[in-house]
Structures are given as C-alpha cells and as structure tokens.
C-alpha cells in the first residue's frame, strides 16, 4: 500500500522497491541490492515531487 500511495503521489515508478530477505540469505541480499541500485541509477537523480521554486522565501523572483 505504501508503494501504491507513493507512486500515486508522483514518486517515479520503480524508485520504491520492496522484498523479503532473511538474515541468512546474504548472497540473495547482495544480488537484490545490486539490481535495485542499477534500476535506480537508470532513473537518475530524484528530482523530488515538487519542482523547487527559486528565490529566498518561496518567491519566484
């Protein structure tokens, strides 16, 4: 539900990832993290949900 909500709110699809990994599954953990890192790298830096406004106090000057 969290992933659904975040993507609904406009977080890039694929940026939120979940999986079950047991503490004893070291290899699988490394593999998953590798995959997710790769996926997120492809998406590029997170621009945030809202375009930042320039200016000192939220003004657009």
């Amino acid at each position: 539900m969290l992933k659904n909500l975040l993507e609904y709110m406009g977080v890039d699809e694929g940026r939120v990832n979940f999986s079950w990994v047991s503490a004893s599954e070291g290899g699988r953990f490394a593999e998953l993290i590798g995959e997710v890192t790769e996926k997120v790298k492809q998406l590029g830096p997170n621009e945030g949900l809202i375009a930042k406004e320039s200016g000192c106090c939220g003004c657009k000057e």
Partner: protein
Amino acid sequence: MQGIETAIQNAAKKLLAENKVDVVIGFENGSQPLRSTPVFIRKPEDAEKLTWNYTCENNLANYLRKKDQKIGVVVKGCDSRSIVALMKENQIDRDKLYIIGVPCSGMIDRKKVADIVEGKEIVEAECKDDSLVLKGRGFEKTISIADVLHRSCAACSYKNPVIYDEMVAEPVAEQSEDYSDIAEFEAKPVAERRAYLAKELSKCIRCYACRNACPMCYCEQCFVDCSTPEWIGKSASDVQDNLLFQAVRVFHGAGRCTDCGACERACPMGINLRILTRKLVKDAKELFDTEAGVNMEDKPALSTFNADDPQPFLVKE
C-alpha cells in the same frame, strides 16, 4: 430535523436522569448561523441545548478515546464507523458507551455556501425540507441543500450508523460507494498528478486541523511536533514538507481510515485531502477486501497477516 432534535434531547434527558451516563456529547448551536459546535451535557435540564441540523459536521468519536466516564454520544453513520474502528484498537470501552444513532443525510459545506452568496455575511439561515433559505443585509437566497453538501457527505455510502444502542429516526436510503474519482486520478500522467498535489498542498498552512479532527490520529506524540530529531520541516512555505506531512498522516490511516472526511471538513484552506485518504481506502478494499469500521469481526487490514496476502509491491525477480 426537528423531530430528530427532540428525540435526541429526550434520549439525553432520560440517560442523564437515570444516571446511565455521566455526560452526553452532542451538538449545540454555534454563535453564528450555519454553525454548530460539540457540547458536553452533564445535567438533564441542559439537554435542551442539544441540536441537530445540517451543520453537525464534527466527528464526535474524537472525544471518546480512553475515557473513564460513562458517555452517551450522538453519532452519525461516519462517526459510528470510527467508533467501531477505535473499539478494535482498544481505545473505547463499549460497556461505558451509549450510542444515540442518527441517520444522516449529509452536512453543509459553509465554503460552498459562502461562494454562492459571494462572501456576503449571512445573518439568518433557515432549513425548509431540501432547501436552505439564507438571509443577510439586502439579500435573500434559497438554495438546494444537495448542492452545498460536503464532498465527503455527497459521496457517503454509510449514512446510517453501523452500531447504536438507540436510533432516533428511520434509516435513510444508502447509495453505493464510488471510487471513480480516485480511479480517474490514478489514470492521469505522473506530471499531472504531481502538479495537482503541489497546487493543493501549497495552500496548506500546517495548522494540523486535519490531524486533530481525525478520530484515528491519536499518537501521544506526533512526528510533526518533534524537534529532536526534526523529522520534518515545520514551515508551510515548503510544499514538499507539506506533502510529506500528508503522506505520513494519510499512511498512518492505511486500513484504519473510515473515510469519514473529518480531515477535509476541518481544513480551513479547503484542500482536497480525500484524494489521498481515499486512495488507501480503495487499496485496502481491493487488496484485502476490507473496509475499516463496518463491523466488529473483520480485523484491520494491516494488523493481520495471511500467507496468501497479495504482494504486488515486491521486486520482480
């Protein structure tokens, strides 16, 4: 409306006179037209203060958590679902609660009324069946109540209380639930969704009325009030922080939110908060086939686990 009001007063008078409850929580007329306010009646003779009209919008379940007194409470359909949800979370002791159920046909959104009279001051408001007569200096206007209902009330599918000890009127007709607004928003492109939420949340003044109006929001310490560590920026000028606040607030209600709409009705800036809360209500229904607070049997969606729970969120391997 008049009949309901008298029935509520009589029920309250009887409960207090027979010492069945220590206090009756209901509504009294506010100091301005189209305003009513929660009231706590402790003496039978004060029961006449109790009122019932189209402005009893607060969710009174908010006053019932962790109370030692015996309480009688005037409850609409939405409030009753909150009470059920809170009972499941052990916040309300059913034995100490007497529920006066009122079938509700929706509450009036004063902001819509203000728009119709172009912001002019209303000196007198009178209900006549399905219409509302508004009088002010130099104008008189009759409007249809159906046109000025709160969004949450216009879409409500639980108008009659799901739990009560006494019902003061005949049940009203229910309508089927409709999540087409959420489905429509889901279907919009990401950029459009972001832009809409940014626009809505830029109105936020971080007054936290939405949090305080919500009966399900009862953490003793809220993450937005913390300063060590400061989980979230406190200034309303940062729309990103406003959105984060709503994301967390809304998610805390996942599988618990009864879609009573109290948050949105309390919002002084008229932010469309239910576009977020209803997404979770819809997901809970679709993923786990549960609705919060409709009966005592179902467990809240996120506090149970089944091996065959759907897990569409997992990374595809």
